[in-house]
């Protein structure tokens, strides 16, 4: 039996594990709820007008399918946090809950096990992202009679971001003793540590294009709407707010950065898992 065939088996059963867990349906329900609420708030409260109320009329961005998609899909990206919950325990739990005593003494390479787990986590996260983007696309079609072309680009970058976040979670999961610790460490690193470093670099006048969080912001870039301006800030494109650089994320560069994070952290997680002993 080839290692590729074993990979198919591992992926199938790891995916089955994800689908049997309530957390998958919880993450799906929360994502649907958040996206629907955001659409309701955007249209019901006329958010584009309210948010841009303090901006001179000449600089305001009129409501459009692109602006709507920017708002809604930036929220949809929250679904990526589901990736953390699917991945945080992927490796650590085999050691913590002792299921590794059944899984590891099998004629299958640990690399194959990690890759299979990774693919399953990615598919679970991607499924939720697909639902979020489909709702957004459907709403855009209903309200504006069109689906913005940038939505596909946004979705591709969202997948790349999900991939890098899963890799980050896998790296923590491979090295930490507990699943909860790995999940919290991933969330803190992604939402706090990267943000602090990115902000620090921005204040110092350096563009943090190479930071995971900043590259992830490129989810909104394919719509071609200046992000800072749309969210009621200053005119975007390299200007500053209180010294903080508001560099627009280049979608192509950010996509590449995300892939590098995904690849490097994933390789690290494989290396760590292979070295880890079942003590």
């Amino acid at each position, binding site marked *: 039996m080839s290692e590729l065939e074993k990979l198919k088996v591992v992926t199938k*059963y790891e995916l089955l594990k994800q689908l049997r867990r309530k957390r998958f349906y919880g993450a799906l329900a929360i994502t649907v709820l958040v996206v629907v609420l955001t659409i309701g708030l955007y249209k019901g409260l006329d958010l584009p007008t309210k948010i841009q109320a303090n901006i001179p009329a000449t600089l305001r961005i009129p409501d459009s399918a692109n602006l709507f998609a920017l708002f809604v899909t930036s929220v949809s990206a929250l679904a990526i946090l589901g990736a953390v919950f699917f991945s945080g325990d992927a490796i650590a739990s085999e050691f913590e809950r002792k*299921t590794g005593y059944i899984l*590891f003494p099998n004629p*299958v390479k640990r690399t194959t096990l990690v890759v299979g787990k990774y693919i399953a986590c990615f598919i679970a996260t991607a499924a939720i992202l697909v639902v979020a983007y489909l709702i957004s696309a459907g709403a855009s079609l209903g309200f504006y009679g069109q689906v913005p072309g940038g939505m596909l680009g946004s979705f591709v970058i969202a997948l790349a971001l999900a991939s890098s976040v899963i890799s980050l979670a896998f790296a923590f999961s491979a090295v930490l003793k507990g699943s909860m610790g790995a999940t919290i460490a991933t969330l803190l690193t992604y939402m706090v540590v990267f943000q602090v470093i990115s902000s620090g670099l921005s204040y110092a006048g350096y563009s943090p294009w190479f930071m995971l969080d900043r590259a992830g912001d490129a989810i909104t870039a394919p719509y071609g709407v200046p992000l800072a301006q749309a969210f009621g800030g200053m005119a975007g494109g390299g200007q500053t707010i209180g010294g903080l650089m508001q560099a627009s994320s280049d979608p192509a560069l950010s996509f590449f950065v995300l892939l590098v994070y995904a690849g490097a952290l994933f390789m690290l997680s494989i290396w760590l898992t292979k070295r880890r002993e079942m003590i």
Partner: protein
Amino acid sequence: MQDSIVIDNLTKYYNGFLALDKVSLRVKWNEDVALLGPNGAGKTTTLKILCGLLRPYSGTARVAGINIVEEREHAISKVGAILETPEFYPFFTPQETLSYLGRLRGMDGSELEDRIKEVIKLVRLTEWAEVKIEKFSRGMKQRLALAQALLHDPPILILDEPSLGLDPRGMVEFREILKKEKKKKTVFFASHLLSEVALICKKVAIIDRGKLRAYDDISKLKKKYRSFEKAYLKLTEGAI
């Protein structure tokens, strides 16, 4: 033909703590050997190295003539193992669990389906085959652990405290299964229950504080020390 299990000068440290100290022993094919010793003696460490879950600091371990460090996947395909108190994925049924493990071991189709039914029946879990494992007691999980160890009909069984968590009936049934299996398999199992060891095995390796203290037939140890219990107590003197 090489012996089924060959351990040569095996040494293992845990953060500076010497868990195994140059342990060497050989188990012939179709021999049944118990690894006996007090808590912390190094029994589980030895079995974990044989199953590729730990790396030795020095020395070698061979299973079916295959070096477990150099060719882990090949070596482990010859082994069925129960280690510590194994846990299973709670949202799978025994049927699904065995199907997953069987496929990883290269089994498929009707061969796998028939074998799953066979081992589930053997450990008396037929009525529970389609029930999620989250509802299982410790003893039932132990039965399932034995089923997965036997699933691919390996020539070597490595078992760590295999009767742990079983009720008296379960222990008797387990011994009967093992008696039948050991006719055609090598059985190497760790225990600290003298009575269990005496009922299952002819040969015993007594280990204490990482060192092999004796490796002989139980009958010979009985003769030398007047009883198996006295032999064990004498050879593990000073253990906690």
